[in-house]
């Protein structure tokens, strides 16, 4: 079937089996490999994308369900040649090591600070509880999200 999604602001259409998972559609049909697969059971969050403004795990919904909707992936974080504050903060605060969970972590963080740039450490940890990182111990991920929140607030003030 023909599936059309608005991905990072651009309409893209591709032909895919109805059973195609959104993550496979993004990675294979659209050739965007920044979204990763870590568990197949909605547990790890490596495949997190933003669907109509909300973080979802793209391994557990069908591409067909995203037909006609807006999807944002890690490739869409950078705008007009500038890193998103969450990207800059992950580098600045050493919020990543192997980088495999990073796109999902950053998208959850980006969605969170859009809603609540003042999120406390405990609130951030709760929001991240659907995403697994095996390298960092989370400390610097939390710090990076807090710093990005502060940056967003300062810019919009």
């Amino acid at each position, binding site marked *: 079937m023909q599936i059309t999604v608005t991905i990072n602001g651009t309409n893209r259409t591709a032909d895919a089996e109805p059973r195609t998972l959104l993550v*496979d559609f993004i990675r294979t049909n659209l050739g*965007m490999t920044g979204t990763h697969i870590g568990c197949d059971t909605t547990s790890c969050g490596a495949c997190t994308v933003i669907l109509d403004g909300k973080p979802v795990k793209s391994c557990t919904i069908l591409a067909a369900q995203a037909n006609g909707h807006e999807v944002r992936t890690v490739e869409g974080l950078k705008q007009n040649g500038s890193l998103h504050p969450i990207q800059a903060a992950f580098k600045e605060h*050493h919020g990543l*090591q192997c980088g495999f969970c990073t796109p999902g972590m950053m998208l959850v963080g980006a969605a969170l600070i859009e809603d609540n740039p003042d999120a406390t450490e405990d609130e*951030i940890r709760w929001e991240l509880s659907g995403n697994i990182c*095996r390298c960092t111990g989370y400390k610097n991920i939390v710090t990076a999200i807090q710093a990005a929140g502060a940056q967003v607030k300062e810019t919009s003030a």
Partner: protein
Amino acid sequence: MTTTAPRTTFEVGGLGHSVKRREDDRFIQGAGNYLDDIVLPGMLHMAIVRSPIAHGRIISIDTSAAMAVEGVVAVVTGEALAAHNLAWMPTLSGDTQAVLATDKVRYQGQEVAAVIATDPYIARDAAVLVEVDYEDLPAITSPQQALEEGAVLIRDEKEGQTDNLVYEWETGNKDSTDRAFAEADIVVSLETHYPRSHPSPLETCGAVADVNPADGQATIYLTSQAPHAHRTLFAIVAGLPEEKIRIISPDIGGGFGNKVPIYPGYVVATAASLLIGKPVKWIETRSENLISTGFARDYHMKGEMALTKDGKITGMRASILSDQGAFFADAQPTKFRAGLFHICTGSYDIGTAHVSARGAFTNKAPGGVAYRCSFRVTEASYLVERLADDAAWKLGMDPAEFRRKNFIDKDQFPYHSPTGFVYDSGDYHAAMDEAMSLSSYSEWRQKQAAGPTADGKLIGIGLASFTEVVGAGNSREWDIAGLKMIDSAELRVHPTGKAILKLGVKSQGQGHETTFAQIVAEELGIPFDHIKVMEGDTDNTPYGLGTYASRSTPVGGAATAMVSRNLRDKARKLAAHLLEASEDDLEWEPGKFTVRGTDASVTIQEIAFAAYTNFPEGMQAGLEGVHYYDPPNMTYPFGTYVVVVEVDPADGTWKVVEMTAVDDCGVRINPMIVDGQITGGLTEGFAKANMQWITFDDNGNCIGSNFLDYLVPTAYETPKFRLGATVTPSPHHPLGAKGVGESATVGSPAAYVNAVLDALRHGGHDIENIDMPVLPHRVWGALNGIEALP
């Protein structure tokens, strides 16, 4: 923390600078290149058919229904591989392992057949249609059961194997240790199981094999922590000429030891590409990763300490029964059957010790990898640190005081341990002092003495003062499958003063592209961000044994320092030529040579240019070199961890209130990266103490085959960490660095468990042991006198 100011500016970024990581630019933009991101023209996809049972004889395999699916190109069975002599492969511990089973299946999840198709969905569809008939055999699910008289023989195909014993191994001095125990005032003893765990890096294992049918050139993209060693083993397994094999290990999404072994999937994908003449991709699902690839630990341990009544340890005994799974595939040095478990005297000056170990085959997946660990040092550290707390409790001593009393003193280094290690350096008292102070240890003891919290929680304080042994190896003692554990670095400085550094090790997230560039920056004064670091391509990097057991900085880092120094020697000659001065009159500071007592100087960039444009007659052009480093000894990182917990006696749950970690990994190249390694390791240690657990039912069904059953901590469960440091340089490493990737995973589990037991003991419950993971129902059972809860 004793440390010296960096010798380079932040912009140059030598030792001691927390410069930001160079690899991050691609990772934060979704532009990494992990294995599953690799797509080659005409590429096929492979799915593996696995055994649903733990032990059984294969009666028949019917592939016809699978072959009939449109898009299926081939179905490979063990029989087909046997025709090419590929049905079995050697393991890293000198055993053989089935690639695809031909006779029996020996664990749930074992590889039986593989389907190759044009699409990954089709490959999986067809894999379900491969019909395999099994005759069930009794499953052996514990090493104790395996060694019982009359136990069914798991390895009936193995010549000379008449029982399920894998190995027996011992070291130390039995007689003097027995004497110490006979003369002891007090003996403390502990039996505990370090449960089976799985490293489960977030990226699973996989391969893309691309064998060119025209010339037989095999390019194999592999999730490999040790690409060079894998190339050699591939040459041996597949009989391919080694020059025709190129292993490329792309960006790796975490390894933690899981990506050290060679897996059947790698071999089948390569064989399939060879037979079909097209590239073949294989990527594990998470379940496949958890049930079939390198597990860790699974040691049934008994430890004893002989003590004087005033608290001095006079002897130690440890005996191990190891659950090896169906094949002996431990990734560890050939000479040591139980890895480095015999470092189990830890940080203590114990006059004599004896260690004995046995391993048994069971109907479980093979592996025995060093999960964020240097070859079983994690089990060793856990045993001795649990015993230390038990001993202090029995003696009525404070566990910090007990440790201080028994620490190897800083003046005793190099320290010869009773089981044959030579500890390079340490100052255990200093790390303990720092940990006591940072954690407000005595205040916590006072709070504990005041009784439970207002809401009835029991306060517990747990310690661990670990000593690690990392950086394998030296070529005298250390090899894996015969390959000596050296490592290498090749450095090429380009005419414009930029450089490329090529390494035999391979990062899986540790930040090599930054840290190793910083080593060159320190030694040559070339800014770290002018140095490209290349790893993981066997055609384009010098030979090395890879990254695991915290060996990259101790061995690969040393090689990098040495090759940089060799280039500096040549640079001095070039500088003398350019400055028309004698080499002896030149003074070096990072980045330039100056003629002593003058302003005349020449920068490393000018020298590099001259190496290709203006070199003296008789000198070879270029500023390049390669160095193979054979370390004189291992390095011995150490530290003291303090954990404060609150245990709820009503339901057995426990929460970490504070976790303080003081690590001494010698000289820190990039402190930011070091701290990141430590917080990661502390989390893995917490995971094992609190939740992570692979177990099996009586039929050998794996419980823990996905992230819903195999719990790993998220940000929400993970404790908050407070870090401290002391710096005791390694005397034999060119930079004084010791390696840090695993210290926290090695040292911390005992601290968490000790804290829970300390809470219970101070709460009036004299409980000897709760096995990890310290699950609430186990704590509750212990508090209520109910034993044998699973």
